[in-house]
């Protein structure tokens, strides 16, 4: 196999890891309900896990000041006054890992009041680690081939 062919295979492998469709487990959609306590500057629970297609209802309960909940990727939001409950319902039709965050200025650390919603598996994380493995292996392979090239050049010069 020539070096060029090896790089093409490596590139193809990277494309497959990044974009190949993954089998989706056929789970019947469920109704999922979460009570999410919001306080300066954290949500509890801070990580929510649902399956793709689930109907998700989040009851946001603010325990101190006004807090909000904005879900990245879904572009949905809700706000809750202190001691009050606000409800957000949506169908989890996008798979992956999404941050949810407070969208009402609630104090100094407000920009970092963040939680995590995982819909199905966090496929992009696994794909990214796969790409990192390919990158590391490719780099090692490149290093293995490279000294031979240099050696050849030196030999040519010496002769």
């Amino acid at each position, binding site marked *: 196999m020539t070096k060029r062919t090896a790089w093409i295979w490596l590139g193809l492998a990277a494309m497959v890891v990044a974009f190949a469709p993954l089998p989706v487990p056929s789970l019947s959609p469920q109704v999922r309900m979460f009570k999410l306590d919001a306080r300066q500057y954290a949500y509890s629970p801070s990580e929510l896990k649902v399956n793709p297609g689930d109907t998700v209802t989040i009851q946001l309960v603010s325990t101190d000041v006004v807090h909000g909940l904005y879900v990245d990727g879904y572009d949905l939001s809700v706000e809750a006054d202190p001691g009050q409950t606000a409800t957000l319902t949506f169908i989890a039709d996008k798979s992956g890992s999404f941050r949810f965050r407070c969208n009402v200025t609630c104090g100094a*650390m407000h*920009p970092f009041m963040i939680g995590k919603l995982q819909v199905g598996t966090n496929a992009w994380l696994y794909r*990214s680690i796969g790409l990192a493995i390919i990158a590391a292996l490719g*780099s090692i392979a490149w290093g293995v081939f490279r000294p031979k090239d240099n050696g050849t050049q030196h030999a040519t010069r010496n002769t």
Partner: protein
Amino acid sequence: MELRLLKPAIKSRYPQLAIFIVMLVGYIFAILAGLIGTPVGSRNFSIVFVWIAWWAILILVAVPFFGRGWCAVCPIPLPGEWLQRDAVLGPEQSRWSSSDRRERIETTRRPKWLNLRVPKMFRNIWLQNISFLLLALFSSVLLTTPNITGIVLAAMLFAAIGLSMIFERRAFCRYLCPVGGFIGLYSQTALIELRIKNKQVCVKCEGKPCYNGNENGYGCPWDVFPGGLTKNTYCGLCMECIRACPHDNIAINLRPFSADLAKPTTRLDEAFKAFIMLGSAMIYAGVLLGPWGALKDAAYNVGTSAWFVYAAVFLGIIFIVMPSLFALCVSRFENINAFKKRFTSFSTALIPLGLMFWVAFSLSFVLTNASYILTALSDPLGLGWNLFGTANAAWQPMLTSILAPTQTLALVGGLIWSARTAQKAANEITVSPLPVIVYCFIVTSVMLWLLL
């Protein structure tokens, strides 16, 4: 490739002075906004423009492409330097009027203040490592509390003035600035460099005006002899040497990324800078962008027992865990000097990886909060103004759909870049780069897990 078109703009002092004045006004306004503006960080110019706008420009554009380009226009050393030189624009011509060279140099070197040389034990970047870590330990408060940001910005300005009164040249920039330390480290990856054209011209040059100054330019404020420059790390791109060089022998060149990294570092302070930056990016990603409220509480509540635990863990990860694992990867049970050489040389591989970690972290932070810039622009002090009609612009994260792929691209790209750098370092010291590549892969995987 020399960037000749820039030369007229560099030789004249006026374009740089104009930028300096705009920057200084903005800096002083940021201090005032922090001290007298609203305590709500996301509505205060000091927080939004320093930690979102400036940070984004610095880490996403200025450092990767222009290296110390920020240092070239940074306003912090200006007041101290003006006082030190007793001039705002250029060297006073009368001082250079004497025909006798020795008299000229004596007159020019006559100190206006103490003009001491920085003690040898401080002529390294350990103080910069410490000053960065001090800010990093308090970063949750610093990044979110306007008056703390105002105080820190003012303290940096006064520290620069004070050091200019005591020491020669830009002692603050070179040895203390917490930002300058990592800009210097990462400027080795930049696309531009300041270098001499012909070494022989420098060898024969009388008086070395690039270092000692002449009627056209001051001696290097960064205490660097341009004739010996092989890396960007300590060249602040102030352009004085280009103005001073009587032979037009100094140029700004365009070059490939990371050209300086082909020559690995041999200094322990620089090696630890790489660990400090790499570790800080990972800790910030976990604490600030992660879902763990207890970590945020610990980082924010300075002085509590939880904060002391956080600080100990922070320092432990940076000074013990990461370097120890790295040392295990590179050690071969040999004498201490050989180990030190191997450790420092291979730490060069962490420079591009660290830069890409910061790019990936900053993308998340900046794209989420960039819409605050519009609000703060119209109402910088949070006093109810609406200067440009955007004071009530709604908060909206930007480009969240491409954030994760872009972060992956940055981190995996950083891993490849680091692996290549490790291979170059390995060629220099004739050992296998494999353990270092594995180390880089592991920390990259951890960072991917933290961010995605």
